[in-house]
């Protein structure tokens, strides 16, 4: 037990370092890693340029891979040698250290003031050079470029593109009950570089990324009533897109970004799913049922919507084609409560909030068979959001009376918790890939 605690402290300390800039608020702790995590050595890069090396690329790659729970990077102090090119890697030495892969490279200053990260990935088993490339980077984008190195290493070894160079949006809440302070925040996927997108003393809810990663739709009550806004991140410009009588909620961008699925109650209070075409403000009613229909999410092909409905008594997930007169079909049958569907990027898996033996947990529903697997272990989990590579699900977990964020792999094998220095964090949405 004590050894496990020490190990956790060590991980937390390592991760706190590369989350560089002051004000960075989040740290990721691995609650459960994969037993078969991949041992890898990330060798500090050589520096070709004047003065001190401007950025420790290897430290960021080390932290990224460790935080994923799929890799076991060798502690830097245990590196017996520090090669900088594939040809310098002595596989026999690395075999003794029981690592399967070695990442080596150089950081160079270019004549135009930019930098170049040149790196190579070597398999220790056979000495094969699996990958080698050069990435140019602006001085201020070295961290981002480092995340791209992590993405490539993850993909070469696991066969799935990494999602380290992505971002997350979430709602942070602090202050006493009668004087809350809500902030919509966007940060890098590792919690660094956080920026406040919008702040209000009234509730902010349900952030959703546009497919190009440039805008976020969300619900705000700052007018005194609920309304849906779309805000462009680069300019901060905020456009109110739905402020009808009753509920304006649960926005979700269509895969082509042209339309927004919404839950509206209009004047009669009957909550149904609608689709708003942003350019024309044309509103199309998708469901028409006296029950609650809400939390729409698009299928990857944009032809249908999954949503929550209590038309059969308790909330369950349904799907409906986005065309006039289409009939909804029930998708979930296992368990007494399945809500807030989010479809995996490949369309095969549906993440839901499911009631599991008295606790609200994150579940994964097989889109074809309807089979349900419970992934998380909390008492009150909600708001699942897939990473753009489908490998992980970000969600909200209530721990010790506070909402915080957590990540579970989409197969349930890796479990991580994100700790905030203060306040509550909830309703995180993972960005698409940002190219």
């Amino acid at each position, binding site marked *: *037990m004590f050894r*496990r*605690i020490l190990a*956790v*402290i060590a991980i*937390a300390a390592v991760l*706190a370092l590369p989350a560089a800039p002051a004000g960075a608020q989040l*740290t990721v*702790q691995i609650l459960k890693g994969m037993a078969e995590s991949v041992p890898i050595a990330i060798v500090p890069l050589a520096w070709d340029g004047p003065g001190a090396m401007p950025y420790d690329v290897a430290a960021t790659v080390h932290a990224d891979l460790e935080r994923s729970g799929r890799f076991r990077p060798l502690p830097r102090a245990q590196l017996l040698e520090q090669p900088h090119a594939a040809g310098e890697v002595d596989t026999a030495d690395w075999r003794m250290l029981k690592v399967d892969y070695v990442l080596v490279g150089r950081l160079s200053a270019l004549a135009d003031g930019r930098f170049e990260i040149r790196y190579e990935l070597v398999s220790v088993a056979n000495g094969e050079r699996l990958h080698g490339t050069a990435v140019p980077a602006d001085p201020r984008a070295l961290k981002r470029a480092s995340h791209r190195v992590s993405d490539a290493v993850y993909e070469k070894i696991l066969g799935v593109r990494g999602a380290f160079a992505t971002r997350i949006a979430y709602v942070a809440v602090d202050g006493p009950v009668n004087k809350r302070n809500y902030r919509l925040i966007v940060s890098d996927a590792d919690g660094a570089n956080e920026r406040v997108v919008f702040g209000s003393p009234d*509730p902010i*809810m*349900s952030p959703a990324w546009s497919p190009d990663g440039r805008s976020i739709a969300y619900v705000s*009550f700052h007018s*005194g*009533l*609920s309304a849906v806004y779309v805000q462009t991140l680069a300019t901060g410009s905020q456009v109110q897109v739905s402020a009808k009588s*009753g*509920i304006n*909620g*649960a926005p979700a961008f269509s895969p082509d970004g042209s339309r927004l699925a919404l*839950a509206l*109650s209009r004047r009669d*209070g009957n*909550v149904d799913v609608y689709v708003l075409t942003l350019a024309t403000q044309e509103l199309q009613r998708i469901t028409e049922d006296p029950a*609650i229909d*809400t*939390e729409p999410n698009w299928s990857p092909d944009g032809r249908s919507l999954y949503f*929550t409905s*209590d038309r059969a*008594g*308790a*909330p369950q997930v349904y799907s409906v084609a986005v065309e006039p007169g289409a009939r909804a079909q029930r998708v979930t049958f296992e368990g*007494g*409560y399945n*809500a*807030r569907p989010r479809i995996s990027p490949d369309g095969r898996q549906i993440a839901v*909030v499911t*009631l599991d033996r*008295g*606790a*609200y947990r994150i579940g994964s529903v097989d889109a074809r068979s309807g089979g349900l697997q419970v992934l998380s*272990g*909390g*008492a*009150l989990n*909600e708001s699942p959001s897939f990473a753009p590579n489908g490998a992980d699900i970000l969600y909200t*977990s*209530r*721990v*010790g*009376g*506070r909402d915080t964020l*957590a990540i579970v792999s989409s197969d349930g094998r890796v479990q991580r*918790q994100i*700790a*905030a*220095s*203060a*306040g509550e964090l909830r*309703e995180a949405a993972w960005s698409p890939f940002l190219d």
Partner: protein
Amino acid sequence: MRSLSILLILVGALVLGACGKKATTVPEGTGSTAVEGGETAGAQGEGQVGEGRDLPGASGSPTGGPAGVANVIYFDFDRSDIRPEYASLINSHAKYLAGSSAVRIRVEGHTDERGSREYNIALAERRAQAVRRALMLQGAGDAQLTTVSYGEERPAAVGSDESAYGQNRRVELIYGR
């Protein structure tokens, strides 16, 4: 596992050199937090629900409206039907509104924290609409009533127990806005 979870939280706080609010409930993963059924869990949870009695402090001293009449209506778990004991409360507000047509009120719906947030927004809207319809049946004018649903976003009581849940499943009638 429990002590490990607590330590994880402590480690996070130490590493960051800052400490959050006092933790009052059991950390995730212990399975001992009392979450039975759920605010929106359907029929299976109904037998466990408390009476949702009027709670001191939450329903007292409304500003505006009929004198001496409370302005909060509490609901059973996963229900939006108004319990019979609130008939006179609603009648008093409806008569007051019918007699002062310039008065406007907000009918604000709320749920407890269990279940999905947007689903709870819909459930709280259903509660607010039930109260709106009841007020209109008793003579209040449509134009006098604005409904707004906050779901679980604005709890009256903090805590993850039935006492807090009962105080949070409510509709408030707010005068003067």
